[in-house]
Protein backbone atom coordinates (compact mmCIF):
# COMPACT_ATOMS: atom_id res chain seq x y z
CA UNK A 1 0.00 0.00 0.00
CA UNK A 2 1.48 3.27 -1.11
CA UNK A 3 1.25 6.32 1.11
CA UNK A 4 1.92 9.97 0.34
CA UNK A 5 5.38 10.81 1.60
CA UNK A 6 5.51 12.03 5.18
CA UNK A 7 2.19 10.52 6.16
CA UNK A 8 2.09 8.14 9.09
CA UNK A 9 0.52 4.74 8.76
CA UNK A 10 -3.27 5.13 9.15
CA UNK A 11 -3.35 2.57 11.96
CA UNK A 12 -1.02 4.79 13.99
CA UNK A 13 -2.64 7.74 15.66
CA UNK A 14 -0.87 10.61 17.31
CA UNK A 15 2.65 9.91 16.13
CA UNK A 16 5.00 12.68 17.18
CA UNK A 17 6.13 14.70 14.17
CA UNK A 18 9.83 15.33 14.39
CA UNK A 19 11.25 18.54 12.93
CA UNK A 20 14.79 19.65 12.13
CA UNK A 21 16.19 22.21 14.55
CA UNK A 22 17.20 25.40 12.72
CA UNK A 23 20.73 25.11 14.11
CA UNK A 24 21.20 21.49 12.99
CA UNK A 25 24.44 22.35 11.25
CA UNK A 26 26.08 23.63 14.43
CA UNK A 27 25.56 20.37 16.26
CA UNK A 28 28.15 18.24 14.50
CA UNK A 29 31.62 19.12 13.25
CA UNK A 30 31.01 17.39 9.95
CA UNK A 31 27.79 19.32 9.33
CA UNK A 32 29.53 22.62 10.10
CA UNK A 33 32.37 22.01 7.68
CA UNK A 34 29.83 20.96 5.05
CA UNK A 35 28.06 24.34 5.43
CA UNK A 36 31.43 26.08 5.25
CA UNK A 37 32.17 24.25 2.03
CA UNK A 38 28.86 25.39 0.55
CA UNK A 39 29.45 28.94 1.75
CA UNK A 40 32.76 29.22 -0.16
CA UNK A 41 30.63 30.05 -3.21
CA UNK A 42 29.97 33.55 -1.88
CA UNK A 43 33.52 34.94 -1.41
CA UNK A 44 34.61 33.36 -4.68
CA UNK A 45 31.71 34.99 -6.52
CA UNK A 46 32.60 38.37 -5.02
CA UNK A 47 36.24 38.08 -6.01
CA UNK A 48 35.36 37.15 -9.60
CA UNK A 49 32.99 40.11 -9.78
CA UNK A 50 35.85 42.34 -8.63
CA UNK A 51 37.96 40.92 -11.45
CA UNK A 52 35.21 41.63 -13.97
CA UNK A 53 35.00 45.21 -12.74
CA UNK A 54 38.77 45.60 -13.10
CA UNK A 55 38.62 44.35 -16.69
CA UNK A 56 35.85 46.85 -17.46
CA UNK A 57 37.84 49.69 -15.90
CA UNK A 58 40.84 48.80 -18.02
CA UNK A 59 38.68 49.44 -21.05
CA UNK A 60 37.88 52.93 -19.82
CA UNK A 61 41.40 54.11 -20.59
CA UNK A 62 44.80 54.38 -18.92
CA UNK A 63 44.07 57.61 -17.10
CA UNK A 64 41.42 56.16 -14.83
CA UNK A 65 42.87 52.65 -14.55
CA UNK A 66 44.15 51.96 -11.04
CA UNK A 67 43.90 48.35 -9.92
CA UNK A 68 43.18 47.91 -6.22
CA UNK A 69 46.24 48.02 -3.99
CA UNK A 70 44.86 48.82 -0.58
CA UNK A 71 45.61 46.72 2.47
CA UNK A 72 41.87 46.08 2.74
CA UNK A 73 41.87 44.56 -0.72
CA UNK A 74 44.81 42.31 0.11
CA UNK A 75 43.01 41.14 3.24
CA UNK A 76 39.86 40.53 1.21
CA UNK A 77 41.88 38.50 -1.29
CA UNK A 78 43.59 36.55 1.49
CA UNK A 79 40.22 35.61 2.97
CA UNK A 80 38.96 34.65 -0.50
CA UNK A 81 42.10 32.61 -1.09
CA UNK A 82 41.46 30.63 2.10
CA UNK A 83 37.91 29.89 0.95
CA UNK A 84 39.12 29.11 -2.58
CA UNK A 85 41.67 26.61 -1.30
CA UNK A 86 39.05 24.95 0.89
CA UNK A 87 36.72 24.73 -2.10
CA UNK A 88 39.42 23.28 -4.36
CA UNK A 89 40.62 20.72 -1.87
CA UNK A 90 37.13 19.46 -0.99
CA UNK A 91 35.81 19.56 -4.56
CA UNK A 92 38.77 17.80 -6.19
CA UNK A 93 38.91 15.18 -3.41
CA UNK A 94 35.25 14.40 -3.89
CA UNK A 95 35.83 14.03 -7.64
CA UNK A 96 37.55 10.77 -6.74
CA UNK A 97 34.28 9.52 -5.31
CA UNK A 98 32.13 10.44 -8.25
CA UNK A 99 34.33 9.43 -11.16
CA UNK A 100 34.43 5.71 -11.72
CA UNK A 101 36.36 4.49 -14.75
CA UNK A 102 37.74 1.16 -15.77
CA UNK A 103 41.12 0.64 -17.35
CA UNK A 104 41.82 -2.76 -18.86
CA UNK A 105 38.57 -3.97 -17.26
CA UNK A 106 39.71 -3.07 -13.74
CA UNK A 107 38.40 -0.10 -11.78
CA UNK A 108 40.92 2.72 -11.44
CA UNK A 109 41.55 3.30 -7.71
CA UNK A 110 39.94 6.50 -6.48
CA UNK A 111 43.26 7.70 -5.03
CA UNK A 112 44.69 7.80 -8.54
CA UNK A 113 41.72 9.77 -9.80
CA UNK A 114 42.06 12.28 -6.97
CA UNK A 115 45.79 12.53 -7.67
CA UNK A 116 45.08 13.31 -11.32
CA UNK A 117 42.65 16.07 -10.31
CA UNK A 118 45.19 17.66 -8.00
CA UNK A 119 47.81 17.24 -10.72
CA UNK A 120 45.55 19.12 -13.11
CA UNK A 121 45.10 21.87 -10.52
CA UNK A 122 48.84 22.17 -9.98
CA UNK A 123 49.60 22.22 -13.71
CA UNK A 124 46.95 24.84 -14.46
CA UNK A 125 48.12 27.01 -11.57
CA UNK A 126 51.72 26.91 -12.71
CA UNK A 127 50.85 27.77 -16.31
CA UNK A 128 48.49 30.60 -15.42
CA UNK A 129 50.74 31.95 -12.70
CA UNK A 130 53.58 31.98 -15.20
CA UNK A 131 51.50 33.83 -17.79
CA UNK A 132 50.34 36.45 -15.27
CA UNK A 133 53.86 37.13 -14.04
CA UNK A 134 55.75 36.75 -17.32
CA UNK A 135 53.66 39.34 -19.07
CA UNK A 136 54.07 41.68 -16.14
CA UNK A 137 57.81 41.93 -16.26
Amino acid sequence: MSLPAGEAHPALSNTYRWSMPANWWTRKRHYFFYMLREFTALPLALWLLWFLVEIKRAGDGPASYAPHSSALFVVFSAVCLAFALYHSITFLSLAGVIIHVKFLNRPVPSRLIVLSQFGLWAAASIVIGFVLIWFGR
Partner: protein
Amino acid sequence: MAKRITIQATRFDPEKDTKPRLQSYDIPFSDDSMVVLDALNYIKAHVDGTLSYRWSCRMGICGSCGMMVNGTPKLTCNAFLRDYWPQPVVVQPLNNFPIVRDLVIDMEDFLDKLKSVKPWIVRKQEIPLGAGEHLQTTSQIDDFKQFSQCINCMLCYAACPVYGLNNEFLGPAAIALARRYNLDSRDQGLKDRLPVIAEAEGVWECSFVGECSVVCPKGVDPAKAIQQTKLDTTMRFVLPYGNRE
Protein backbone atom coordinates in the same frame (compact mmCIF):
# COMPACT_ATOMS: atom_id res chain seq x y z
CA MET B 1 32.30 -2.08 43.85
CA ALA B 2 30.11 -2.88 40.86
CA LYS B 3 30.04 -0.32 38.05
CA ARG B 4 26.81 1.36 37.14
CA ILE B 5 25.75 3.42 34.17
CA THR B 6 22.89 5.83 33.46
CA ILE B 7 20.74 5.38 30.38
CA GLN B 8 18.47 8.28 29.44
CA ALA B 9 15.83 6.95 27.07
CA THR B 10 13.10 8.79 25.21
CA ARG B 11 9.60 8.02 26.46
CA PHE B 12 6.53 8.89 24.44
CA ASP B 13 3.08 7.40 25.01
CA PRO B 14 0.88 8.45 22.07
CA GLU B 15 -2.24 8.03 24.20
CA LYS B 16 -1.06 10.18 27.07
CA ASP B 17 1.84 12.44 26.04
CA THR B 18 1.89 15.46 23.75
CA LYS B 19 5.63 15.34 23.35
CA PRO B 20 8.54 13.02 24.11
CA ARG B 21 10.62 13.28 27.29
CA LEU B 22 13.76 11.63 28.60
CA GLN B 23 13.60 9.09 31.42
CA SER B 24 16.70 8.13 33.39
CA TYR B 25 17.56 4.57 34.33
CA ASP B 26 20.51 3.64 36.53
CA ILE B 27 21.60 0.07 35.82
CA PRO B 28 24.54 -2.22 36.56
CA PHE B 29 27.33 -2.15 34.00
CA SER B 30 28.46 -5.67 34.78
CA ASP B 31 30.34 -6.67 31.64
CA ASP B 32 32.67 -4.64 29.44
CA SER B 33 31.18 -6.23 26.34
CA MET B 34 27.73 -4.77 27.11
CA VAL B 35 26.16 -2.77 24.33
CA VAL B 36 23.35 -0.21 24.47
CA LEU B 37 20.88 -2.90 23.35
CA ASP B 38 21.89 -5.03 26.34
CA ALA B 39 21.17 -2.04 28.57
CA LEU B 40 17.72 -1.56 27.00
CA ASN B 41 16.95 -5.27 27.40
CA TYR B 42 18.03 -5.12 31.05
CA ILE B 43 15.78 -2.12 31.64
CA LYS B 44 12.82 -3.85 29.99
CA ALA B 45 13.38 -7.09 31.87
CA HIS B 46 14.17 -5.77 35.36
CA VAL B 47 13.30 -2.09 35.68
CA ASP B 48 10.54 -0.88 33.36
CA GLY B 49 8.67 -3.33 31.18
CA THR B 50 6.85 -0.52 29.35
CA LEU B 51 9.92 0.68 27.42
CA SER B 52 9.34 0.00 23.69
CA TYR B 53 12.04 -0.44 21.04
CA ARG B 54 12.86 -2.58 18.02
CA TRP B 55 15.59 -5.21 17.93
CA SER B 56 16.18 -8.68 16.58
CA CYS B 57 19.48 -10.33 15.68
CA ARG B 58 21.67 -8.34 18.17
CA MET B 59 24.63 -8.86 15.87
CA GLY B 60 24.50 -6.05 13.31
CA ILE B 61 22.86 -7.79 10.37
CA CYS B 62 19.09 -7.33 10.67
CA GLY B 63 19.05 -3.53 10.78
CA SER B 64 16.24 -3.36 13.38
CA CYS B 65 17.88 -1.67 16.36
CA GLY B 66 18.92 1.69 14.89
CA MET B 67 18.57 4.60 17.35
CA MET B 68 20.28 7.90 18.19
CA VAL B 69 22.98 7.27 20.79
CA ASN B 70 24.31 10.55 22.19
CA GLY B 71 23.14 12.29 19.04
CA THR B 72 24.65 9.89 16.52
CA PRO B 73 22.62 7.26 14.63
CA LYS B 74 23.94 3.84 15.61
CA LEU B 75 22.91 0.21 15.75
CA THR B 76 22.42 -0.20 19.48
CA CYS B 77 23.75 -3.74 19.25
CA ASN B 78 26.98 -2.20 18.01
CA ALA B 79 27.34 0.66 20.49
CA PHE B 80 29.51 -0.39 23.41
CA LEU B 81 28.71 1.06 26.84
CA ARG B 82 32.42 1.16 27.68
CA ASP B 83 32.86 3.88 25.03
CA TYR B 84 30.44 6.14 26.90
CA TRP B 85 30.89 5.22 30.59
CA PRO B 86 30.98 6.95 33.04
CA GLN B 87 28.93 9.58 31.18
CA PRO B 88 25.20 8.93 30.81
CA VAL B 89 24.11 7.43 27.50
CA VAL B 90 21.24 9.28 25.81
CA VAL B 91 19.18 6.94 23.64
CA GLN B 92 16.59 8.53 21.35
CA PRO B 93 14.55 7.36 18.36
CA LEU B 94 16.11 7.85 14.92
CA ASN B 95 16.05 11.48 13.75
CA ASN B 96 13.92 12.56 10.81
CA PHE B 97 11.16 9.99 11.35
CA PRO B 98 7.80 10.34 13.12
CA ILE B 99 7.88 8.78 16.59
CA VAL B 100 5.31 6.05 17.20
CA ARG B 101 6.14 5.26 20.81
CA ASP B 102 9.27 5.60 22.96
CA LEU B 103 12.18 4.54 20.72
CA VAL B 104 10.03 3.19 17.87
CA ILE B 105 9.75 5.25 14.68
CA ASP B 106 7.32 5.07 11.79
CA MET B 107 9.26 3.62 8.86
CA GLU B 108 6.49 3.55 6.25
CA ASP B 109 8.02 6.41 4.28
CA PHE B 110 11.30 4.56 3.95
CA LEU B 111 9.56 1.35 2.92
CA ASP B 112 7.58 3.19 0.26
CA LYS B 113 10.73 4.77 -1.13
CA LEU B 114 12.54 1.45 -1.10
CA LYS B 115 9.73 -0.21 -3.02
CA SER B 116 9.64 2.63 -5.54
CA VAL B 117 13.15 1.83 -6.79
CA LYS B 118 12.23 -1.82 -7.46
CA PRO B 119 15.04 -3.37 -5.42
CA TRP B 120 14.98 -6.73 -7.20
CA ILE B 121 16.29 -8.17 -10.47
CA VAL B 122 14.08 -6.86 -13.26
CA ARG B 123 14.21 -8.82 -16.50
CA LYS B 124 12.63 -7.86 -19.80
CA GLN B 125 13.04 -11.42 -20.85
CA GLU B 126 13.51 -14.26 -18.41
CA ILE B 127 16.08 -16.79 -19.55
CA PRO B 128 14.45 -20.17 -20.13
CA LEU B 129 14.69 -22.60 -17.24
CA GLY B 130 16.58 -25.10 -19.38
CA ALA B 131 19.35 -22.57 -19.98
CA GLY B 132 20.34 -22.84 -16.34
CA GLU B 133 21.35 -20.10 -13.93
CA HIS B 134 22.64 -16.59 -14.67
CA LEU B 135 26.42 -16.63 -14.73
CA GLN B 136 28.47 -13.82 -13.22
CA THR B 137 32.20 -13.30 -13.00
CA THR B 138 33.76 -12.05 -9.76
CA SER B 139 34.46 -8.80 -11.53
CA GLN B 140 30.76 -8.38 -12.36
CA ILE B 141 29.87 -9.06 -8.74
CA ASP B 142 32.48 -6.53 -7.58
CA ASP B 143 30.72 -3.87 -9.64
CA PHE B 144 27.74 -3.81 -7.28
CA LYS B 145 28.85 -5.76 -4.22
CA GLN B 146 29.51 -2.82 -1.94
CA PHE B 147 26.03 -1.41 -2.49
CA SER B 148 24.44 -4.79 -1.83
CA GLN B 149 25.60 -4.75 1.79
CA CYS B 150 22.72 -2.49 2.86
CA ILE B 151 20.68 -3.89 5.76
CA ASN B 152 17.94 -1.24 5.54
CA CYS B 153 18.72 0.05 9.02
CA MET B 154 17.84 3.67 8.11
CA LEU B 155 20.79 5.19 9.99
CA CYS B 156 21.63 7.03 6.77
CA TYR B 157 18.18 8.64 6.67
CA ALA B 158 18.61 9.73 10.29
CA ALA B 159 21.98 11.25 9.42
CA CYS B 160 20.89 13.01 6.23
CA PRO B 161 20.00 16.69 6.81
CA VAL B 162 18.46 16.90 3.34
CA TYR B 163 15.95 14.19 4.29
CA GLY B 164 15.43 15.87 7.64
CA LEU B 165 14.54 19.15 5.96
CA ASN B 166 12.56 17.55 3.14
CA ASN B 167 10.78 14.25 3.64
CA GLU B 168 10.17 13.96 -0.10
CA PHE B 169 13.85 13.23 -0.78
CA LEU B 170 14.32 9.67 -2.02
CA GLY B 171 17.19 9.16 0.40
CA PRO B 172 20.56 7.38 0.60
CA ALA B 173 19.64 3.72 1.03
CA ALA B 174 16.97 3.70 -1.68
CA ILE B 175 19.34 5.28 -4.20
CA ALA B 176 22.23 3.01 -3.20
CA LEU B 177 20.01 -0.04 -3.67
CA ALA B 178 18.71 1.26 -7.00
CA ARG B 179 22.33 1.52 -8.11
CA ARG B 180 23.06 -1.96 -6.77
CA TYR B 181 20.48 -3.40 -9.14
CA ASN B 182 21.30 -1.08 -12.04
CA LEU B 183 24.91 -2.26 -11.90
CA ASP B 184 23.99 -5.95 -11.59
CA SER B 185 24.72 -7.66 -14.90
CA ARG B 186 21.63 -9.85 -14.49
CA ASP B 187 19.35 -6.81 -14.26
CA GLN B 188 17.57 -5.12 -17.17
CA GLY B 189 15.55 -2.63 -15.15
CA LEU B 190 17.53 0.61 -15.35
CA LYS B 191 14.93 2.30 -17.55
CA ASP B 192 12.22 1.29 -15.07
CA ARG B 193 14.10 2.85 -12.18
CA LEU B 194 15.25 5.95 -14.00
CA PRO B 195 12.10 8.05 -13.58
CA VAL B 196 12.21 7.61 -9.79
CA ILE B 197 15.96 8.11 -9.46
CA ALA B 198 16.09 11.11 -11.77
CA GLU B 199 12.98 12.92 -10.63
CA ALA B 200 13.16 16.25 -8.82
CA GLU B 201 13.16 14.61 -5.37
CA GLY B 202 15.56 11.91 -6.50
CA VAL B 203 19.33 12.17 -6.66
CA TRP B 204 19.35 15.90 -7.45
CA GLU B 205 18.28 16.84 -3.94
CA CYS B 206 21.44 15.37 -2.47
CA SER B 207 24.04 18.03 -1.73
CA PHE B 208 26.78 15.54 -0.78
CA VAL B 209 26.93 16.19 2.93
CA GLY B 210 28.34 12.68 3.20
CA GLU B 211 27.13 11.94 6.72
CA CYS B 212 25.14 8.95 5.42
CA SER B 213 28.35 7.16 4.51
CA VAL B 214 29.95 8.12 7.81
CA VAL B 215 27.22 6.43 9.87
CA CYS B 216 26.57 3.40 7.65
CA PRO B 217 27.43 0.32 9.73
CA LYS B 218 28.05 -1.86 6.67
CA GLY B 219 30.34 0.36 4.62
CA VAL B 220 27.84 0.75 1.78
CA ASP B 221 28.96 4.34 1.05
CA PRO B 222 25.55 5.55 -0.16
CA ALA B 223 27.03 9.01 -0.81
CA LYS B 224 29.28 7.47 -3.43
CA ALA B 225 26.33 5.61 -4.94
CA ILE B 226 24.32 8.84 -5.19
CA GLN B 227 27.11 10.92 -6.76
CA GLN B 228 27.90 8.19 -9.28
CA THR B 229 24.20 7.94 -10.10
CA LYS B 230 24.08 11.69 -10.73
CA LEU B 231 27.01 11.44 -13.12
CA ASP B 232 25.74 8.33 -14.93
CA THR B 233 22.25 9.76 -15.27
CA THR B 234 23.62 13.02 -16.67
CA MET B 235 25.82 11.19 -19.14
CA ARG B 236 22.81 9.24 -20.39
CA PHE B 237 21.16 12.48 -21.43
CA VAL B 238 24.25 14.43 -22.43
CA LEU B 239 26.04 11.85 -24.55
CA PRO B 240 23.96 10.88 -27.57
CA TYR B 241 25.12 7.28 -27.68
CA GLY B 242 26.69 6.83 -24.30
CA ASN B 243 25.66 4.60 -21.46
CA ARG B 244 22.38 3.36 -22.80
CA GLU B 245 21.09 -0.16 -22.50
